Each structure stands twice: as C-alpha cells, then as structure tokens.
C-alpha cells in the first residue's frame, strides 16, 4: 500500500533579481526595470519521484537548498508543484512549526482550540483530547492564563503536545525537533516511536543525522533538486557524510583583496587514538587538525574553527587567539585539542579560517568545511556540557544514626 507518491514533480521559483549597479537609481525606475527584465527561474525540484509505503518511516536528507524543504511544503499543501503529481493516501499532518497560530492574548485553553483547528482537528476531537493535551504538556496550572505569560519551554511543550495528539495516517516532520532542550527532543522521539508502532507512515526531513538514522527505515539523499541516493539510513548517511567530508572548494573566500599569504588546505577531526572520524560523543576527547599552506610570511595570525548548528546558531569556537603566531612560508598543521567535547548531540557545520589578529580580518575562510556529528555521550542536559565531577560527604546527624544514611545516585537521574 503506497501512502505517499511523488511522480515527476518539479517546482520552479521565479526570482526577480536586481542588478547590482541599479541600486543608485530611483526606486520607481528600479521596480520597472525589474518587472520588465523578467524573472530568473530557479528549479528547486527537478523531476523528483519516490514512494512511501504504508507504515514506513522515510528520511530525507541533504544540504540546504537541495530541495528538502520544498518537498516538505509540497506535502503539506503549502505550495503547489509546477509540474508532476503528488498522491497522498490518508490524513496527513505536518509538524513543521510548533505553536503556529498561538495568539499571545488568548489563554492556553483557547490557543489549544485555535491551534488544534488550524492543524485540522474538529472541535469535538479537541474537547475529547483536551485533558490529555494539557497533561502531556505539563501546563495544567497555567492553562487558563494568556499564553504570553508562558515560559518559552512551556510554549514549545504545549505546541508540541497539541500536534502530538493529531493521530494522523501520515506524519510529516522537519527540524521542529531541533527546538527545545534534549528532554523535549527525547519526548518527541518517543512519540514518533509510538506512532510508528501504531503503523503511522512517517516522512522525516532533517539535518539531524543521528535522529534520522534512529527513526527511519529508509533514507533519500537530495542534492540540487534531485534524489541522488536511496537506501538504508546507514548507507545513505555515510554517503552524505563522506561527500561533505571533502572540503568544498567553491565555499572558500579570500578575505583581503589580493592577499594570498595563507590558505587553509584541510580540516580533519581525530579521536584519542588518532583515527579520523566525523562522529564524536559529548564529553569525548577531540582533536581538530587544520592543514594550511603559507606562501609569504605572516605576522600574528589567529586560526579559528567555528562550529554552528544547521540553523546558523554559532555554538562554539576553537581559537588560537591566546598566543601570538607568526608563520613562515611552507606547509603546516595546527591541532586544536579538546579534552572533553562540550557540544550537545547534533550536527555541526564548521567554518575554518586564518585571520589577521588586527580586526580579526580573514585571510582565508573555508565555509561549510567538514561536518561534525555529535552523538549522545556523557550525560548532559541543557545547551552545552560542562565537564564535572562530584563527591559525597556524610554529615553527623542530631537524630538517630539510621536517618543519616543519605542516598545519592549519579549526578543526574534522567535516562538518556
């Protein structure tokens, strides 16, 4: 039984681009010339075809601009294809944005009705599930307060709770899981597992390769609007990772005009045994080796390795600012050693750069260099992991000796 079928679907966006030299002309003239010039065509999807079986969990991965979010929008009926057909068999619910339609002035209860009906639930259905929704979100105390008084955590939990009660035949998921802390993400994944057991068909579009590997039966790899690979999660993800492992030379930029004095050659990550890896665990020892080439002597440079999540949020940076480095011509390697990786599980893109210290002007930057994947490791919650130990001391109690037995477990009791 096929639940979702794409047949030769193409999607074109018309982009009206302004020529750079025109910015000095009068706005009305610019607008006219833009309209007259006609639009450029950008094909976000090119003759894409695939099928999803009933009960299957399909993952779709690929770089930004590969066409993933276009597939998402087409499935969610947010936009229409330029050509081709999409066949959907059953009730489809899209979990694309949690809390869409929440109005800050309305109470939690009123917003449940609002959001629920926007997502396609009938009033009767919402009323029946209301208690369960409130319970799952853990907001019973505040349910009759205006939503603008909610903390961001409550907001996200309530939004997700409503969507989690959708019970569709086909569930469409995207980066929505990246919102919220890891406890919330664990809850999301748990709900997805439950839905899988119930036989729901799932289409999961994400950059979180770990989650995709965990949740999906089959994965499609998209590139420039086409499907380039289809297979088991392991195969396809490995193919994707090794593709991005090679530095993409079109992503590099020389910062200062004509200054070619230094150049980044490669970035590799190494485990404690020296082996090259792109998958690490929170709390693990990590070495980042940057190979560079210097053509003319440079004084006082700073190397930087920026690590950021797919949404552009810069999580952390390795930097050599602490020392003054001056380089002589030739090849070299700088190795950043991190005894305990503080990044939380997820995918991190990296930018590598060699910069002049003054004003941190870049000599050479390689954008979107090797992708780093961090899987769960040391028990960690929140935004980042801080290495920590703990020890226990016994206090003499004024009560009888039996009551002074204090039981302490490991630093956290949550299951990962």
């Amino acid at each position, binding site marked *: 039984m096929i639940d979702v079928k794409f047949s030769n679907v193409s999607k074109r*966006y018309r982009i009206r681009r302004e020529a750079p030299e025109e910015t000095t002309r009068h706005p009305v003239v610019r607008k006219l010339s833009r309209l007259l010039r006609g639009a450029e065509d950008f094909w976000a999807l090119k003759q894409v075809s695939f099928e999803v079986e009933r009960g299957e969990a399909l993952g779709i991965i690929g770089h930004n601009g590969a066409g993933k979010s276009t597939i998402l*929008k*087409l499935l*969610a*009926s*947010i*936009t*229409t*294809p*330029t*050509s*081709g*057909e*999409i*066949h*959907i*068999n*059953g*009730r*489809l619910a*899209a979990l*694309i*944005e949690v809390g*869409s*339609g929440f*109005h800050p*002035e*309305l109470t939690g209860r*009123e917003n449940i*009705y*609002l959001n629920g*009906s*926007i*997502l*396609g*639930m*009938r*009033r009767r259905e919402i009323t*029946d*599930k209301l208690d*369960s929704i409130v319970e*799952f979100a853990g907001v019973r105390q505040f349910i009759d307060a205006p939503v603008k008084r909610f903390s961001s955590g409550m907001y996200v939990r309530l939004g997700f709770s409503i969507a989690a*009660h959708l*019970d569709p*035949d086909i569930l469409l998921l995207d980066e929505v899981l990246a919102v919220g802390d890891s406890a919330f993400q664990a809850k999301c994944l748990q*709900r997805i597992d*439950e839905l899988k*057991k*119930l*036989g*729901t068909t799932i289409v999961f579009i994400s950059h979180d390769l770990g989650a995709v590997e965990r949740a999906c039966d089959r994965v499609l790899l998209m590139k420039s609007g086409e499907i380039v690979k289809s297979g088991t999660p392991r195969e396809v993800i490995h193919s994707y990772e090794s593709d991005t492992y090679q530095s993409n030379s079109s992503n590099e930029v020389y910062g200062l005009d004509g200054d070619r004095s230094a150049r980044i050659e490669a970035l590799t990550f190494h485990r404690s045994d020296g082996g090259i890896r792109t998958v690490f665990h929170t709390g693990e020892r990590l070495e980042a080796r940057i190979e560079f080439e210097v053509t003319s002597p440079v004084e006082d440079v700073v190397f930087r390795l920026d690590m950021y999540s797919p949404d552009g949020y810069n999580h952390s940076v390795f930097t050599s600012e602490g020392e003054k480095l001056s380089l002589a011509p030739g090849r070299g390697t700088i190795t950043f050693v991190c005894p305990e990786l503080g990044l939380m599980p997820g995918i991190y893109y990296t930018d590598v750069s060699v910069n002049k210290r003054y004003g941190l002007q870049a000599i050479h930057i390689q954008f979107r260099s090797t992708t780093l994947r961090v899987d769960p490791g040391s028990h960690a919650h929140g935004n980042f992991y801080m290495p920590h130990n703990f020890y226990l001391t016994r206090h003499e109690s004024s009560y009888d000796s039996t009551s002074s037995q204090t039981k302490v477990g490991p630093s956290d009791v949550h299951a990962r």
Partner: protein
Amino acid sequence: MASNPAIVTRATRGTHRRSKTIRPPSFSVSRIVGDLATLAQYRDLLYTLSVHRVKVRYKQSVLGITWAIVQPLSLMLIYTLVFTVITRVPTSSAVAYPVLLYSALLIWSFFSNALTTATNGLVSHNHLVTKVYFPREILPLTYVVAGLFDLVIASPVLFGLMLYYQVPITVNALYALPIVLVMTIFITAAALILSALQVRFRDVGMALPLLLQIWMFASPVVYPLSAVPSRFRTLYMLNPMAGVIENFRKVIVEAAPPDFSQLAISGLVAVILLPAAYVFFKHVESTVADVI
C-alpha cells in the same frame, strides 16, 4: 500515553482512507467543487478563528465590545454637528437627520471595516500561510464575519435612536435582511479579491483607505440620494453602494418597501461576482506561500 484512549490504533480504525492528489494549479469546475468541500471540512476553523478575531479585538480594553457601537455613533455625532450646524444638507425627508445618518453609517461601517481589515488578512498571517495548510479563504472570511458581528452589536442603537426621534418602525424593516445579505456577498467577493491582490501588490492595502474615503462621499451616506442633482443621478447610480445604502435607509427608517429592481440588480451582480472572486482567489492561493 500509549494506553491513552484518545489515541486510536490503526487496527481499530477502518481501512477507508481519504486520498488526495496535488497537481499544478489549473482551472476546472471539479477542482473548485473540491475546494469548497475542503472549506466545509474546515468550518470549525472558520468558527474558531472568527470568534478569536472578535475576542482579540476587544481583549485588554476597558470599553471592550462597546467599541463596536462607539465608532458609528461618534461618527454620526460629528457628521450631525457638521452637516446641521456648520452647513446644511438638504433633506427632503421628515425623518430627523441623525437617524438618516446613523442608518447609513451602520451599513457603511460594515462595508468599510470589513474590507479594510480583510485586505491585509493573508499578509498579516504570513507565518501561518507559510507553515500550515488550511483553506486560505478562511482568513479574509473571518474578517467579514467579524464585521457582521459588529453590525449586529451596533444595530440596537439605531432602534434606540428611532424611538427617541419617534420614527416609526414597520414591517418593511425586515427587508433589511436581504439587503444585508446582498451586501455581505458583495463584501465577501471584494475581500477575496483584495486580499489576494494585496499579497503581491501591497499598494492595494495603502490605496484602499483613501479609496474608501472618497467612495463614502460619493455615496448617499452623509446626504440622502434626493440631494444629488437630477442631472447627475444616473451617473451617480452606477455606484453599487448607492443603491444599497439608499434602500437600506428606505426600508428601516422611511418605512417604505425597497426598490425591487435595484435590489435585484445588486443581488445579481453580487451573485456573479462571488464565484468569480473565489476562482481568482484560489488561483492566487496556490502561489501565495512563495511570494508572501
């Protein structure tokens, strides 16, 4: 949560499933019929959003729902002051000027407010339009419903005024209902067209308040139709609102039956305009998320 009775397993649900095919936008009657069926499916959303629209407007305001009355009432007071004390508007009617004025203002406010708010309906909800699917026509429709609600709230004041000025209320007033119906159909059609245009051409939203301002003075709102010199009258009557407002005033305040031929023509125009507007809207809807 797996044991939650609210969650139904695939096994207990029937194997009958609704299936849907998404194709590139094209016009066909069956497609429009399908769109209307989808709209019917989402009627709960239409209800919920309309209620929300009305509630939110008056939340956190002390006067609350009385604002719906304050607008036509204060306009009426100002215009009465201007057009009876400062300058004189010739009224051939025996009915007091404030009553004539308020009755016209009531229907004009409905028209003007519903259109102004509905035009920006899609654009102001762009976060919804780009993230969630639901029949987009619901957005401008909720503003029309909210406008109708305001009309209902402000109507008792008219009857109060009529009592005060001893204007008789007759059975002919019931003709107001089909007039309001025709008005609503016309406003809905205009709302659909304008909100669709507004997405791509924001000038529409800017030009509208100005257009409405001019339109109001070109309609028999602050003056009765009889005040228009007869040599201009046929031209004047080309204004669709002229007939509607005059008839509305006639049946409620002047206790006379409406001009049936005029009503029939307005009705016909509205009934033809609405499906055309809907088709236009649906055509634009398919690319709305790409350009909003």
